[in-house]
């Protein structure tokens, strides 16, 4: 659709968000990502039936864990949209970037400069 979305969003493709593991999310944060979001299909539309629901639970687990070690849980989020919603995709990217900018750079980063964000 050639819509613009912020360049600091780095996309990692997976066949289904059910493939996303707790450790992937944690490693992203550990390696300095200011924020991580998981973009899965709309609930009920998962091709593998429950992949996106599993992802939702794992995101919730990571949020809780981060809270327990003193990091803002809002840095990790779950979003749902269909592959046809190009506009929504860009919108989420923009909204999340704004939210993370407001939170500031991740306290985990050694350089503490605004930079990469993994999606």
């Amino acid at each position, binding site marked *: 659709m050639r819509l613009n979305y912020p360049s600091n969003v780095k996309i990692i493709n997976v066949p289904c968000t059910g493939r996303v*593991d*707790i*450790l992937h999310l*944690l*490693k992203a*944060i*550990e390696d300095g990502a200011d924020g991580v979001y998981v973009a899965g299909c709309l609930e009920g539309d998962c091709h593998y039936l429950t992949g996106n629901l599993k992802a939702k639970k794992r995101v919730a687990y990571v949020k809780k*864990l*981060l809270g*327990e*070690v*003193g*990091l803002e849980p809002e840095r990790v989020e779950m979003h749902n949209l269909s592959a046809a919603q190009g506009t929504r995709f860009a919108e989420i990217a923009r909204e999340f970037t704004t939210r993370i900018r407001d939170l500031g750079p991740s*306290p*985990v*980063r*050694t350089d503490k400069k605004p930079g990469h964000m993994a999606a």
Partner: protein
Amino acid sequence: MVVAERKPMEEILTMVADFKKILLTGCKGCVTVCNAGGQKEVGILASALKIARKKEDREIEIDEITLERQCDPEYIDQLEKPIATNHYDAVLSMACSVGPQYIAKRFEDVLVFPVLNTTFIGGSLEHGVWAEFCQACGSCVIHNFGSICPITRCAKSLMNGPCGGSSRGKCEINPETDCAWHLIYDRMKRLGRLDKLSTVVMYKDWTTNRDGGPRKIVREDLKL
């Protein structure tokens, strides 16, 4: 299996507060099955600890090893090389509490910490849910109770239950806990053995339980 769960992060962070280099060990036994201390959980904890440290602008070096089991000395031996070559401040065990005790016994000069709270002997009810079924009393008589253990599953360990607090099949201490005696009654009724519940069951011999002191089993036929 032995069912355990990870200690609260706050407690673990306090344990490692002064350490710069640790060995985090997992176990492929029971704690892998109950998703508490297997290889995956070791990875997750290591990452969480590193995040916590980086946040404070401090570092922590964590080596990860997951052993076959931590309740047999020959697997604990596998830690000899890593412990000898690295100067760890401490070794953390994500096995059930037998693990850290075995590590500490084998490596007497090393500080060892348990990362899990070992909770009970039980089984899974569904994916992600485990419940207690056995208290290891040492003299199993569940067949007298329709193969339901009253010692473990009755909050008062009654041998002649139910007590007066059994209501709609649930225990008075928790509306989600089944009244074991209601289950036993229903099972014995179904099996046509209700008459067995009419005689008074006499005193339990607790000497085979931990009450008799820490227990040990010796199999002469298996000793080398």
